[in-house]
């Protein structure tokens, strides 16, 4: 949607007067002027001035010749632009984002929004009513592309109170072929060239550029026109590019307006302050609040304004500028402390406000992270993070129970601090070793008792006598997971002559038909 505020500067000048004085200003022919090298030149005139003959672009002297009592008022382009910025933010009530179209237009993206207002026609009616309520003359138009909307709002045929709508299904060329080439947002010299070429309407340009039926003629004609504007890279200097933008063949990026609020903190005081020490305290608190506000936006302050409201209504302003963006509360307090020496408290200060009118991005710094950890210790999450960052995520884990009887599968490793899923309570009947080897190590049985339990074995090059045995605890292979040749395990707790306690197992039993003589392994160490 494009909104053209056709008489923005005049409307603004008019709204600056009191409501009861407006009839008088409307009656008097007036013109807004701007000083130029050739003297004051009219930029806009009110209705009475227009009827009197004043036109935009006229020299004031020429207009005075037509209408001697024409009042000249200095124009304010910067104020107009600021007003336009505010309006574009305000126009975001109709769409998620809006863009400026200087000097006097707005573009609002209303894709998929019209149904919220009851249709496109009612949306445009709402726009017209809202701008009329603000006392601004506005012409709005809806179109699939920004270029078409702009052309329609500036040059479309407007019924009274209704904007022009170009639907998504309409052929834009058929609808817009009557518009002048000025509707393409071109520079003045390009318009001159086009006028000399005899191209006055969009339809003519499109016919020349070949959007009609014959493809061969179209390509040749477009090629001729393109050669003339070959070196014109900017869209505003190239009518073909502008036409393509209007038809939606090439994209037209727009720069949206976003509102950035100024960080502001303030304190309303219960009792008016009359003493310097209390004021310093309040400024210190405000600086702390400001640091927090800036930290939330990851910005640092470049300019800070302190305003002190006195009981008698006087407002004292103090302003500091900083060499680099900062978020140091003590630094800010110290700087303001030097500027507060000449404050006249009078009957007391009842409100203090601190604003950062200029702030710059400042990443969070971790200068005192180590120092804080050194002094106060870290939290568990911070500790886990530090370990994970240096050692890797797989190195820092917690053991969790897994539903299996095979010892090496009965335990899984999960990231710490992750919630543990509910598990069935384990049987406390069997004693498990304190530590499990990653791989069970084979042991050489040198001598076995008649029931098959080793009496003497060698492990890690040392021969050990088994003094006490408890077992076997038989753990069958998981047939639903393992191959049919997997052998069962008979686990024994043993203690050797020195009191060392181990967990050993025999893999398979003799004659189970799944291999030869069963091997012995040592898998765990008891405390």
């Amino acid at each position: 949607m494009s909104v053209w505020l056709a008489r923005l500067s005049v409307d603004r000048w008019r709204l600056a007067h009191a409501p009861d004085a407006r009839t008088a200003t409307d009656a008097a022919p007036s013109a807004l002027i701007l000083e130029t090298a050739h003297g004051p030149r009219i930029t806009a005139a009110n209705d009475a001035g227009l009827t009197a003959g004043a036109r935009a672009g006229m020299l004031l002297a020429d207009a005075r010749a037509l209408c001697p009592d024409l009042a000249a008022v200095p124009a304010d382009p910067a104020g107009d632009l600021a007003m336009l910025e505010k309006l574009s933010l305000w126009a975001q009530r109709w769409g998620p984002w809006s863009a400026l179209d200087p000097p006097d237009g707005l573009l609002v993206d209303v894709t998929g929004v019209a149904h919220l207002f009851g249709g496109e026609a009612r949306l445009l009616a709402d726009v017209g009513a809202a701008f009329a309520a603000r006392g601004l003359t506005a012409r709005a138009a809806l179109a699939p592309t920004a270029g078409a909307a702009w052309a329609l709002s500036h040059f479309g045929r407007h019924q009274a109170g209704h904007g022009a709508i170009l639907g998504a299904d309409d052929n834009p060329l058929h609808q817009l072929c009557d518009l002048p080439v000025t509707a393409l947002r071109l520079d003045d010299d390009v318009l001159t060239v086009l006028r000399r070429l005899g191209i006055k309407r969009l339809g003519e340009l499109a016919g020349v550029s070949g959007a009609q039926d014959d493809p061969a003629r179209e390509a040749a004609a477009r090629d001729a026109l393109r050669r003339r504007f070959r070196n014109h890279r900017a869209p505003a200097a190239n009518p073909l590019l502008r036409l393509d933008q209007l038809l939606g063949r090439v994209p037209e990026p727009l720069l949206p307006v976003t509102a950035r609020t100024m960080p502001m903190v303030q304190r309303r005081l219960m009792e008016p302050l009359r003493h310097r020490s209390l004021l310093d305290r309040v400024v210190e608190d405000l600086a702390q609040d400001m640091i927090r506000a800036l930290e939330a936006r990851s910005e640092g302050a470049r300019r800070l304004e302190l305003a002190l409201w006195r009981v008698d209504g006087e407002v004292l302003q103090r302003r500091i500028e900083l060499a680099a963006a900062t978020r140091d509360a003590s630094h800010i307090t110290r700087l303001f402390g030097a500027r507060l020496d000449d404050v006249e408290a009078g009957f007391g200060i009842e409100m203090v406000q601190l604003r950062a009118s200029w702030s710059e991005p400042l990443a969070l710094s971790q200068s005192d992270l180590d120092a804080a950890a050194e002094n106060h210790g870290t939290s568990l999450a911070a500790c886990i993070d530090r370990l994970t960052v240096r050692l890797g995520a797989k190195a820092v884990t917690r053991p969790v129970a897994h539903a299996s009887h095979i010892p090496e599968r009965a335990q899984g490793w999960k990231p710490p601090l992750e919630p543990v899923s509910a598990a069935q309570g384990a049987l406390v009947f069997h004693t498990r070793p304190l530590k499990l080897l990653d791989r069970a190590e084979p042991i050489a049985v040198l001598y076995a008792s008649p029931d098959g339990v080793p009496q003497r074995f060698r492990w890690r090059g040392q021969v050990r006598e088994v003094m006490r045995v408890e077992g076997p605890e038989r753990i069958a292979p998981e047939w639903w997971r393992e191959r049919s040749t997997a052998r069962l395990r008979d686990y024994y707790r043993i203690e050797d002559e020195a009191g060392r306690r181990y967990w050993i197992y025999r893999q398979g039993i003799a004659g189970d038909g799944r291999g030869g003589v069963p091997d012995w392994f040592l898998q765990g160490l008891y405390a």
Partner: protein
Amino acid sequence: MSSLSLRPPDARILSRALPEPRWRPGLPAQTFHSEIFASANEASGAGLALALARDALTSKDPSGGGQDTRHVLWVQDRAAIRLGGRPCLAGLPPEWRHRLIHVAATTPEDALFALEEGLKCRDLACVIGEIAGNPRALGFTAARRLSLTAERHGVMLWLVRLDAQADLSSARMRWRVCAAPSPQPRWNPAAPGTATWHAELFRARAHMPGEWMLCDDNGTLCISSDPEQSSAPDHVGLARPTVGRSLAAGARA
């Protein structure tokens, strides 16, 4: 009257722990950095470290020992894992099973880093480390760093040194431990009994050196005077003790 006047002020009594020359389990004043030298072919080092840690935590906080939900950090370097294996969940004390965080460090340097980071973390109940051999990184400076960090943040550290020489160290208590024959269980005399260790305290600041036969009696560390004693407890608890918590709380957990 004279005895009253000789009594030191209360602050001095509180500030200075009573010097106890002979170490015993359950001392209220605990050291923050202990070293335990053990063989890598047995789990006595880790077992004694665990028992000492539980003893220290319960004696430090005798009322809420069972309610402690802080995590325990267990750091091992790669050689220690290869020689001694990883902690087994089902073999840990029941109240520690859900709050163990295991760190498998590749090198001794990484293990020392993890130990120091763990000691800085006030949310940990204690830190247990296992480092094999005498790596160059674990010199006197590293040990002193660990001691200072532990004492500064009040987190206790038991460092198990597997197959290591007792070189220079600033640990406040240094133990040497090996397994000892266990007492006979009541119900099956042929079976291994509760864990028993022969522990030698060979260097300590506040205590005299000495040797003890320690055993882990159902979660509490105690001195076993006579291993042949027939009244040695059975390792199989017929019913789980529910002291310190309600059954409903356990069911909810």
